[in-house]
């Protein structure tokens, strides 16, 4: 990757579901260090676009390049290992795991293979310590021993982001991080993402315009077909 080529390059991306063209010829560049917001009405295909960036959806046509490499056909786990991490609009955590174990699993996924059968995973400091540090960063330390299912909605949103950070990503794909959060929670979240923004490249899908205009360097608008 040369100094001025973008970190993420999307060219002519198309994805249809039956007759509905959810992604229609999207071209987009995201430069390193930049926060790129994607806004648009519900159903305009914002989450579909993130799905194609994170590898859960296969585009019908077009190409995605990340750090100079064509990743269009890579599966989600492989993209995670390239440094792309995604948070979900609808909270997607391990509800029957503790908060710490949720984050430790994300650390584990990037700490070599997991064909290790004997030692208790909880007793591996190489996993627990980085996980603790991430929990500190998002402010969930006090809740580390609690089952994720018992967290409040706002705390689950924080955990969602903690799991993204635990994979040490280069590019963050955040799907409506403020979804369902109250006004005060949203303000706290904006401050927190503002801190992340300095160290990370982000693609942010968000409805909260306050968040978009505070955080985004560029805004990409997708429209209903």
């Amino acid at each position: 990757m040369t100094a001025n080529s973008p970190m993420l390059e999307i060219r002519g991306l198309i994805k249809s579901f039956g007759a509905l063209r959810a992604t229609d010829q999207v071209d987009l560049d995201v430069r390193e260090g930049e926060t790129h917001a994607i806004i648009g009405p519900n159903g305009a295909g914002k989450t579909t676009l993130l799905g194609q960036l994170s590898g859960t959806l296969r585009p019908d046509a077009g190409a995605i390049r990340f750090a100079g490499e064509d990743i269009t056909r890579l599966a989600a786990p492989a993209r995670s290992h390239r440094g792309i991490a995604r948070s979900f609009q609808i909270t997607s955590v391990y509800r029957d795991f503790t908060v710490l174990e949720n984050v430790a699993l994300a650390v584990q996924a990037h700490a070599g293979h997991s064909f290790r059968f004997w030692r208790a995973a909880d007793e591996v400091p190489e996993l627990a310590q980085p996980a603790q540090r991430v929990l500190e960063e998002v402010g969930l330390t006090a809740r580390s021993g609690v089952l994720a299912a018992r967290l409040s909605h706002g705390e689950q949103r924080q955990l969602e982001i903690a799991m993204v950070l635990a994979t040490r990503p280069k590019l963050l794909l955040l799907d409506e991080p403020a979804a369902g959060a109250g006004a005060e929670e949203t303000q706290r979240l904006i401050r927190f993402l503002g801190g992340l923004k300095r160290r990370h490249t982000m693609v942010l899908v968000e409805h909260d315009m306050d968040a978009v205009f505070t955080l985004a360097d560029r805004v990409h608008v997708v429209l209903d077909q």
Partner: protein
Amino acid sequence: MRKGQLFWGAAVVLLAALPPAALALQQPFYLDLVRRVMIFAIAAASLNLILGYGGMVSFGHAAYLGVGGYAVGVLSHYGIDNGWLQWALAIGASALAAAAIGAISIRTSGIYFIMITLAFTQMLYYLGISLDEYGGDDGMRLATRSRFSGLVDLDSPVAFYYLVLALMLLVLYLSHRIVRSRFGRVIRAAKSNEARTRAVGLSPYAYKLAAFVIAGAMGGLAGALLVNHTAYLTPEFMNWTRSGELMFMVILGGMATTAGPLLGAFALLIVEDLLSGWTEHWQVILGPLLVLAVVFFKRGIAGSLFHDRE
């Protein structure tokens, strides 16, 4: 987990004290019954690994009992009664069978997974029936029980009982370690939320397949024990109702708990035994009892007993 330690302490003492007690009371039948329970506890524990922890609803787990049983029975048929060899083959062949069945079925999920695992087991079941050399659907008597260089004599009910007890405790301890390891964490994560697991950078397939193979190997051990227990080899080892029973033991005992398979095997086989001694229409009573048990012990016996998450 003080409750858990208490439970395991009591369970080991009671199980270890059973042979002298049964012999003193001249009730050797109980030795036989509990030995059978413990063999099924091994099979149920192996199913629990993939069903309880891994969320893979294998409706064909009797296949590995069958493969393990046939490995021992067939060798013995040709006069090879070396237990080390027989059991190694039983475990190896079941692991191999599980690898083949798992490689295909793990690509599917939900109802398809259930149907494919059932179909594979039915295939093996009918294969067993077609093998006239080994008694076809009548099965055949085991020529001799496995011999272990004079170390343990399986023809001695007491020695065989203690061997089964030791192996059961070993299998339960192994699965306890496995599900808490990094490997087990991935298996549990894939069950809990596959999309997130992939997003976080893990491909669950290889881990699920490995769990499937481990479970198959443990099932094969149970099969080798079972054929020595009954001293009779029959395709009935692989009957689909047997797969259903194993599933029931896991669910009744408490999915994703260490003690669940043992408690489930105990509950099901002992109740079955009591009812069948009382009336020949015992299944009419057992059915509703099982329905009630599932309705009222949603988390199984172990879940209700220990309450908090293990």
